[in-house]
């Protein structure tokens, strides 16, 4: 599989796989390692080859650190920003609950024909956004895959 960083200035050719697009500008300002981000995306792709979109996003800034998508005209910046907002709002809602609700693990969004999942890293600084077709996998399987990758 080809992996192209945004700074490589390589043409986005499809050489036996979908290239991982890395948001290098966003990565420079984040504390998350590029190696880890790429590993997460590669492992998710390996276990769910039919996935529609997978992206690693920073919670605080909403920056998309890396993504792979099979959708034409997929805009990682917008999708990442909106989902980061979802995560932040949910974290705030949990913080506002009386008692100790615990850490946010994942958010599951079942649509009619698609499943969208958000799995927040243990440190709460970044999350993985995954979109799959409902006919390809089940909600539980996609969740287990993300759980096994992001520990």
């Amino acid at each position: 599989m080809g992996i192209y960083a945004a700074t490589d200035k390589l043409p986005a050719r499809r050489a036996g796989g979908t290239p991982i697009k890395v948001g290098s500008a966003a990565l420079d300002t984040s504390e998350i390692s590029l190696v880890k981000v790429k590993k997460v995306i590669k492992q998710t792709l390996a276990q769910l080859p039919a996935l529609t979109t997978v992206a690693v996003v920073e919670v605080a800034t909403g920056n998309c650190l890396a993504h792979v998508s099979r959708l034409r005209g997929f805009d990682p910046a917008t999708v990442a920003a909106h989902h980061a907002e979802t995560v932040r709002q949910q974290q705030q809602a949990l913080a506002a609950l009386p008692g100790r609700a615990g850490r946010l693990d994942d958010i599951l969004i079942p649509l009619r024909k698609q499943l969208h999942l958000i799995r927040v890293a243990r440190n709460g600084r970044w999350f993985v956004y995954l979109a799959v077709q409902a006919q390809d996998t089940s909600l539980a399987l996609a969740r287990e895959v993300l759980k096994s990758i992001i520990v």
Partner: protein
Amino acid sequence: MAYSTNSPAGKVVQDVLDNLPGLVAVAVVDITSGMALASHSNSPNINPETAAAYNTEVVKQKQKAMSALKLTGENIEDILITLTNQLHLIKLAGNKFIYLAVNARETNLAIAREVLRSSAENLN
């Protein structure tokens, strides 16, 4: 203990546990989502939720295989999987299935299957 005996699924898990106290793991699983409605494990190695997710794929693939073979009017009753030391059984009931893992040395396949058959009647 990941179930409540107030629900039909929880009752089934309790029922299977009462009949096979030495079982490794048991779960009642929704086929659409692959999520366990109720589950119990006696082994630290088997997470019944993980088993539920992956075994749902087994059921779905078999259903796909049957539709590809045009086996209309046929339904999967159960799926029996023999491992070196364990038996894994999947008993379908409507849109749900019961997943059961037992130790092959302790439990007879026929008994395990019979327990699932009688428990599945209470599921829907």
